[in-house]
C-alpha cells in the first residue's frame, strides 16, 4: 500500500491572492461589466439581486437573483473584457 503522503502547503510569492469577499468580488464584477454603475454602487442604491438576474440571463444561468455558487463560478471563468451592458 502507498504510504500516507504529508502534503506541505506554501504561500507562493507574487501570486495574486484576493482578500475580497465573494460579495465584494461580485459587486466589482457587476460594475466592471456594466450591470451596476459606479455611482449607484457607491450610493448604495443598487439592487444587487436585479443586477445578478440580468447577469444570469446574459450567461444563460438560472435567474435566481442570488449570488449562488453557479453564478460565482461563472464570474470566475476566463472571458472577454468588453462590458456586457452599457458603453
Amino acid at each position: 500500500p502507498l504510504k500516507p503522503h504529508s502534503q506541505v502547503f506554501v504561500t507562493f510569492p507574487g501570486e495574486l491572492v484576493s482578500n475580497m469577499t465573494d460579495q465584494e468580488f461580485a459587486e466589482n464584477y457587476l460594475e466592471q461589466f456594466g450591470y451596476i454603475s459606479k455611482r449607484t454602487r457607491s450610493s448604495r442604491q443598487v439592487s444587487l439581486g436585479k443586477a445578478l438576474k440580468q447577469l444570469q440571463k446574459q450567461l444563460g444561468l438560472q435567474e435566481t437573483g442570488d449570488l449562488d455558487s453557479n453564478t460565482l463560478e461563472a464570474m470566475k471563468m476566463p472571458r472577454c473584457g468588453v462590458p456586457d451592458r452599457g458603453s
Partner: protein
Amino acid sequence: FQTFEGDLKWDHNDITYRVLNYSPDLDAELTDDAFARAFKVWSDVTPLTFTRLNSGEADIMIEFGSKDHGDPYPFDGKDGLLAHAYPPGQGVQGDAHFDDDEFWTLGTGVVVKTRFGNANGEICHFPFRFEGEYYSSCTSEGRTDGLLWCATTANFDKDKKYGFCPSENLFTFGGNSDGEKCVFPFIFDGESYDACTKDGRKDGYRWCSTTANFDQDKKFGFCPNRDTAVTGGNSQGDPCVFPFTFTGKTYSSCTSEGRGDRKLWCATTSNYDTDKKWGFCSDQGYSLFLVAAHEFGHALGLEHSSVREALMYPMYSYIEDFRLHPDDIAGIQFLYGSGTGPDPNPPEPTSETPDEVTLPEVTTTTTEIAPVDPTNNPCKVKYFDAITQIQGELHFFKDGKYWKVSAAGQGAIKGPVQISDTWPALPATIDTAFEDLLTKKLFFFSGRSFWVYTGKTVLGPRSLEKLGLGKDVEKISGSLQRGQGKVLLFNGEKYWRLDVKAQVVDKGYPRYTDESFAGVPTDSHDVFLYKDKYYFCQDRFYWRMTSRRQVDQVGYTKYDLLNCP
C-alpha cells in the same frame, strides 16, 4: 445578438488591420495565420474584406500587452480577462488588445514551431522518441552546443525529422535587430547580463542585447518563450529550471507539491528554497484564433451575445471544429449584409457543351436542364408571397400558385397548384396566411382584405378595419400563432396581437417588432410559425427564432425549407 448603441459600424467594407507586436508564446507566423483565419470567419459571411498593413494607421490595430498597457482598461494577469476590443471608429476605436499574461496557443497546449533543421518549420511532436527515450519538451540532449531541438514526428530514431525550438540563443523578435540572436553576456546600464532580462522595461517583456554592449550599440530584441516558459507567479516568461530544489527535495519536472489547487508549477532557478522564483507550467492555453475572432466581432460592431454557443458569448471555451453560429451570422449581416460567398447552386451543364451533345445520354440531360418556367419551379422563385404551415404541410404561395412540402421530413415538393382551385375566393397574391390552431380555420390576408376558410366555407373578403387595424395599415405581411387563441400580425416595423375568437386586435398594440424580436429584419416580407419556431423572411433568407426569442439559425429558404437541390 447585440450591436453597440447606435449600431456602430465601419462606413467602408475594405477594412485594414495591422499587427503591432507579437506574444513570446506563439511564433509570429502562427500568430499572423491565427489573425488571418479570425478575420476570414467574418469575411466569409459578409461583403467585408480585410487587408493587412505593415505600417501606418489601420482600422484595426492589434497588439499584445499586459496589465496597464496604455488604455484605461488594464488587464488582470493570468486568466480572468483575456482580451478586449473597441467598436468601430477612429483612433483607438476598432483596436483589439490581447492580454500577454495569458498563455497563447491554438487551444490545445504549447505549440512549438521549429526553425532550421530538416523539417521545413514543422511543429514539434510531443512526445517524441530519441535514442529509445521519450521527450515531452524540447531538449538539448544529443548536442554539444546546448541548442534546444525537437522531433517533428513521433519517432526521431526512425524518421530523423527535426528542427530547433525557439530560444534566445536562436533568434529574437521585435526590437531593432532584425531577429538576430542574443549575445551573452551583454552590458546594459553598466551591468553585465548573461540571460534575458525584464530590467529597463515596464511592460514585463524579456529582452536581450544582440551585441555585447547595449549601452553602446542600442541593438536589442525580445526573447521568445521556450516551451518550458512559465506563466504567472513571479517569473512570467522565464523557463523552468530542472532539476530544482523545493523544501529540500529535488524535482525534475513540474509539480503540484506545495499547492492546494493541484496546479503544476516549477522553479525558474535551481533552488526555490533560496530564490523563491517560480511560475505555473504551461497548460492548454487559450486559442488565439478563437479569442481573436471574438474580439474582431467587437471591432466590427457586435456586442456580447447571450447565446451560449455563439462566438460573441462573453466567456471563453475551446471549440475544436469551429463554425460561426447563426446568431453571429445574423448579427454581422444585420450590420453589413450578406456576402456574395460561394454560389450554393451546383454548376449546371449547358446544352452547348460538345461532350453532352455527342453522348447518348444527351436526350435525358437536355431534358433535365431545359430552361424551366420559373413560375412552375419553386426552386427558381427568388422569394415567396407567403409561407405557412397548413395541416402539417408547409405551403409556399407565389403569384396565384402554391407548392407544398411535408413538415415531417425531406419529402418531395408537390405542386404547383392554382390557389383558386383550392380556395376559389382568394386573390392571386397572398401576403400571409395562418391556420388557427384551435379551430383549424384558415385566415388569408391580401392587401387590406382578409378571408376566413372553414373547410370549403368562406367568409370574406373583409376589411382589415374589422380587425381594428387603422387605414394606415396597407397590408399584413406575416403572422405567428401564439396559442390560447392569439395570433401576432406583422407589418414591417410594427405588430399587433389578434384575438382570433373575437377577431379584433388587443389593446396596447401595435408594438415595435425590433423591441420584441431583436435580431431579425424589421422589413421581413413574411413571418410564420413552423415547428414551434418563428421564421422571419427577407429576400432569399430566413432568420429562425426560438420561443425564447433568440435567433438560432439563419438560412436559405429554398434549400432549408423547400428542400431544393
